[in-house]
């Protein structure tokens, strides 16, 4: 138990450090810029929303109202596809020339953090919309709503940080979003496995030993991805 507490303290220390870093740089203005662009170019935002709606509707027409385990699986598969579409825009939608401009005004790590936070916010919104649609169309098997929303939020963070980094790679390779999906699907598979395992607790009354450990591993993995993204992004950025 003592080890676990120390561990939690360590993790929260890192989070605190990241938060402090957030407010001193131009991170906030970068995030605000991305959200502003998103709001002004409404067609991309509503395009993704339409995509979410269509995906859930297609799932509904094929499965009707499935039992809880199938519901869970379908929900996370939908999350995966929504993530590829929503997050792909973070690097692929801006022209290469603009990156050269950003390069001159901000540090690469700040830029990466901004993109990650922005895509997390975007994906979180899309996830909640798809959760709502799932509840309306595919039935509502959720027992602990708060817990499920929390896991959805963790899922959004996990998926968006991985896909943001991969979309940076795909953008540098002058490729389309397909490359991002090819690189990303194997990498997020373990995360999706863990997420669906975690989510089972909120929708079915089953006894799950080691649930807390699994959640901790997932959060650590997220931290690892963020740290790697910040360390490795400067190398992607060089011309």
């Amino acid at each position, binding site marked *: 138990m003592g080890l676990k507490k120390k561990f939690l303290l360590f993790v929260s220390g890192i989070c605190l450090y990241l938060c402090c870093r957030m407010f001193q740089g131009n991170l906030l203005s970068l995030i605000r810029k991305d959200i502003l662009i998103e709001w002004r170019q409404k067609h991309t935002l509503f395009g993704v929303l339409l995509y979410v709606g269509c995906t859930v509707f297609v799932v509904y027409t094929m499965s009707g109202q499935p039992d809880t385990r199938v519901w869970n699986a379908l929900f996370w598969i939908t999350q995966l596809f929504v993530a590829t579409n929503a997050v792909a825009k973070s690097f692929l939608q801006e022209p290469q020339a603009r990156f050269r401009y950003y390069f001159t005004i901000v540090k690469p790590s700040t830029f990466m953090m901004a993109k990650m936070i922005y895509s997390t916010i975007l994906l979180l919104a899309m996830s909640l919309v798809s959760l709502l649609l799932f509840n309306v169309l595919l039935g509502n098997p959720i027992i602990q709503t708060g817990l499920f929303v929390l896991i959805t939020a963790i899922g959004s963070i996990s998926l968006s940080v991985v896909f943001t*980094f991969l979309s940076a*790679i795909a953008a*540098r*390779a002058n*490729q389309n979003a397909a*490359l991002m999906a*090819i*690189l990303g*699907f*194997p*990498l997020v*598979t*373990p995360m999706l*496995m*863990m997420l669906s395992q975690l989510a089972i607790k909120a929708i079915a009354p089953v006894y799950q030993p*080691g649930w807390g*450990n*699994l959640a901790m*591993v997932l959060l*650590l*993995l997220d931290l*690892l*991805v963020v740290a*790697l993204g910040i360390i*490795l992004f400067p*190398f*992607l950025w*060089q011309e």
Partner: protein
Amino acid sequence: MRRSWWKVLSVILVAYAIIGGLLLPVPRQHIINETIRNLYFHVPMWFGMILLFTCAVVYAVKYLRSGNLEHDIYSAEFTKVGILFSILGMLTGMEWANYSWGEPWSNDPKQLGTAICMLIYFAYLILRSGMKDEEKRARLSSVYNIFAYALMIPLLWILPRMVDSLHPGNGGNPGFNSYDLDSNMRMVFYPAVIGWFLLGLWMTTLSIRLHLVNHKRDNDFHTTNK
């Protein structure tokens, strides 16, 4: 110029692993029986794979620090031979599982983890083959290699330990831990691990030399303009 004692050692050790592995006595365990000999062939593949991928990551980091394209060639070839080892490990494991578990694929967490790890490295090959520009290919694939390795290690070591596995030594199955693996088996197992790894290293050096020659020929002004 190149010392070749370790190549001889590799041949001797692998030959010993094959002959000794098939002929020397092994302890008789419930269910596993004679298939325990697969330990000498299946497990060294995973050790070899991890070590080769580790070498690949070391050279990927070296490339990012130095910008020397030769390091990228090293990294890519280590990865390719690592992928070969993972395929061989998967095949030997599935063959063994066919007799011990009754089917080649039974959703064992270790099998799942390995399958995902193979997919990750196949994506690496696709990323590399998609780019023509050498510098860019080297940089992006090095970055992806480090990223993939850092995500793969927790996957291979933590995830199978959180769920019960069908593998020997897990979930109450008889296995190769300190009580079950007797000293006779150790006498073959450790040499087999070293031998197979050295063989993989040898294959990698051959492949690296081939690619270095190609690289030099492509970048040599006189030969490319003939």
